[in-house]
């Protein structure tokens, strides 16, 4: 009975991420198909890489004939933020069975990191693994669905669905900063700093995110009031 309640809880927390993933995964499947990737390649990208934005980058670079090493470097740079997220999450995993940590790490995404960061009490082995696996399977499954039947969807609906991820990020962030002026100030700082880096355009794609996160966190850590 308790197990059932726990899994219902997992679904409750996973649902927003799944809803956010479905349209993006379908779009990835479609983009892969249009770029002449095979179904196996689309599946493998989602199954083995499992890092949304970098999968799109991979398809674009491969299609443009960029070499293997260059693609790997570009993807690694874009995903460098996951190194910071993994570090940030790692210090809060004291209730997790050590044997599962590599698996939990592999399944880490921007979205699961965001969710667990604001619900640290949920970081138990069973809950974390269950939530991450559900989201992972959703991503992989709907990448394949996108490849096979994605073209059936009207183009405007596909475009509208592409906004789902940014909406998901906002939906996770807003409740955690609501009424907290110190946290809102940190978010504004990060936005201003990143916008500056973006238009300055001197850092490679990916590094601008990493530098933005590190510098704004370093400045912002002194602004947080203990709660």
């Amino acid at each position: 009975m308790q197990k059932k309640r726990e899994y219902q809880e997992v679904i409750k927390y996973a649902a927003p991420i799944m809803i956010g993933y479905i349209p993006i995964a379908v779009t990835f499947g479609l983009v892969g198909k249009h770029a002449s990737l095979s179904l196996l390649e689309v599946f493998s990208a989602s199954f083995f890489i499992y890092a949304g934005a970098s999968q799109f980058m991979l398809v674009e670079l491969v299609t443009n004939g960029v070499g293997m090493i260059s693609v790997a470097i570009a993807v690694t740079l874009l995903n460098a933020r996951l190194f910071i997220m993994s570090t940030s999450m790692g210090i809060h995993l004291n209730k997790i069975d050590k044997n599962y940590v590599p698996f939990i790490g592999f399944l880490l995404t921007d979205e699961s990191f965001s969710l667990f960061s604001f619900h640290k009490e949920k970081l138990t082995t069973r809950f974390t693994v269950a939530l991450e696996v559900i989201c992972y399977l959703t991503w992989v499954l709907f990448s394949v669905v996108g490849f096979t039947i994605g073209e059936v969807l009207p183009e405007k609906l596909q475009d509208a669905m592409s906004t789902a991820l940014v909406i998901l990020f906002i939906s996770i962030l807003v409740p955690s900063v609501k009424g907290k002026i110190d946290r809102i100030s940190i978010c504004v700082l990060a936005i201003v700093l990143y916008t500056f880096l973006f238009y300055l355009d001197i850092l490679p794609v990916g590094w601008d995110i990493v530098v933005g996160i590190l510098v704004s966190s370093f400045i912002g850590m002194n602004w947080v009031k203990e709660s």
Partner: protein
Amino acid sequence: MKTILLCAICTSLLKIVPMSFLTNRHMNPKFIRFFNVIPYTSLSILIIRSILTTEGKMLLPTIVSAIIAAFVMIKKGNIVLSICSGVAISYLILMMG
């Protein structure tokens, strides 16, 4: 396929190594404080990056749906409702024009 597997190895290392190394270790409070701020900064940056890299016809739907989603979250606190209403607004704007 080789490219996909190489990218998978690089990405997996980025995700697995720090987490495996830091789990159950005692940390300096300043270090913890720094990493506790990262969810706020990283999410803010991912949001603004999505908006800054949005092109042409998608810019208005993205901004309006983001505002609507934030409003729904503040008023109702329901993520699923927030995502659905954001995507629906985005679709409506695209249909209009």
